[in-house]
């Protein structure tokens, strides 16, 4: 007999199911009066530093139909490139910016929507700067382990070109799946679960 590493195993993931909004955005699901507001709806206040933007889009299944029962969470740095997290050791993030958002996809149209700010750049593991990006986490019925991806900004061509994570994607024709298109102050980031346009997902 050898010794044991005695690590525990992570609890196995299970789908969020079709009623994820009861638990995570109950006011959106018409369960009123339990929580004053759904968590993650307000990322900014009137004092938040940075350029105000809207991030929106849809999530398409393999038939091209927008998913209307998903839950999306995002996590991003503030305008100076600092995360509002205890594990952020480089400095103190903007206290008027949570960095974290949670939104359902609309039950009719399938659009999710976040009112946020454009993040600053944060370093890769080796110190090189990554391009500004927003981390996405997607849970829904039919998704057994929530999907992780990143949104990059279409108006950051130079930064995107030197981003060490985008550089890692072998099939270069898939890189545009991670880049949101800008129109005014709105960035549209559509996510494709399958097909020719399948979004790059990350095993993080």
């Amino acid at each position, binding site marked *: 007999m050898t010794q044991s590493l005695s690590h*525990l195993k992570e*609890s196995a993931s*299970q789908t969020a199911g079709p009623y994820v909004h009861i638990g995570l955005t109950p006011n959106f699901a018409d369960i009123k009066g*339990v929580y004053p507001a759904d968590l993650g709806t307000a990322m900014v206040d009137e004092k938040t530093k940075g350029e105000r933007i809207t991030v929106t889009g849809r999530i398409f299944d393999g038939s091209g139909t927008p998913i209307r029962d998903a839950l999306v969470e995002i996590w*991003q740095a503030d305008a100076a490139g600092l995360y509002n997290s205890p594990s952020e050791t480089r400095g103190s993030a903007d206290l008027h910016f949570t960095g974290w958002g949670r939104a359902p996809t609309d039950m009719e149209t399938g659009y999710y929507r976040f009112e946020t700010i454009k993040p600053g750049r944060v370093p890769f593991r080796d110190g090189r700067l990554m391009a500004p990006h927003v981390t996405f986490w997607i849970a829904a019925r039919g998704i057994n382990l929530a999907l992780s991806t990143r949104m990059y900004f279409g108006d950051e061509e130079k930064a995107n070109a030197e981003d060490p*994570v985008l550089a890692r994607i072998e099939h270069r024709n898939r890189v545009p799946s991670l880049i949101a298109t800008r129109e005014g102050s709105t960035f549209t980031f559509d996510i494709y*679960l399958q097909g020719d346009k399948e979004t790059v997902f990350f095993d993080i």
Partner: protein
Amino acid sequence: MTDRRPNRAPETGSFFQRDPLWHPPAFAPGYKSTVLRSPRKAPISLDNTISEITGPVFGHSMLGDLDDDMIHNFAKPGESAIGPRIIVYGRVLDERGKGVAGALVEVWQANAGGRYRHKRDGYLAALDPNFGGCGRTITDEDGNYAFRTIQPGAYPWPNGPNEWRPQHIHFSIFGHGFAQRLITQMYFEGDPLIWKCPIVRTIPDKAAIDGLIALLDMNATIPMDARAYKFDIVLRGRRSTMFENRLEGN
């Protein structure tokens, strides 16, 4: 969200790699909804950067008095939800066996008859006017959590002509880093539907399924009030430093 976990230095290590043979695969056709919702291309491996090892903090101050009491948090004053009264308690740990302090635990479930309070749930079982179906709590310094609810009923679902979900409570857990984010389900010891369920059976490893089955704990029961089920949740562990080439701090 500005509260900080007291008495603990923040950890900055990357998370242990997930075990793909332990979690359910994306494409699991026995659970039909996965067929069109499973990415088919290989995910790109990404060593954790600061974007994955950081995450928001939720302070106890955001919690309302009844957030962890689903028997009462939607009920009219003086009334309570119908069904077997239970306490669900346990610890949120990480793979190193350390308690995860300050973890946000959010739960949702059907009522005692197996019906969700949701406009898309058409099951003919009655709605309970005093049961909403959502609750939340935050773990203490050692990772402990507890909430009070009623035991949910099993319910039919349209995956097959006669498919029933075992009794379950949905769990969403927010640990210390965004890459630790997890959604899972808790099942009840002894429920024969567990082993017939296509969603349970997306999990390839029986030991991983066993890890989602809560045990009746008579020692935690409140006599003449509520039975107790113990359910521990394990999140990804983390390395002691962010970069492998820095070995100090071990």
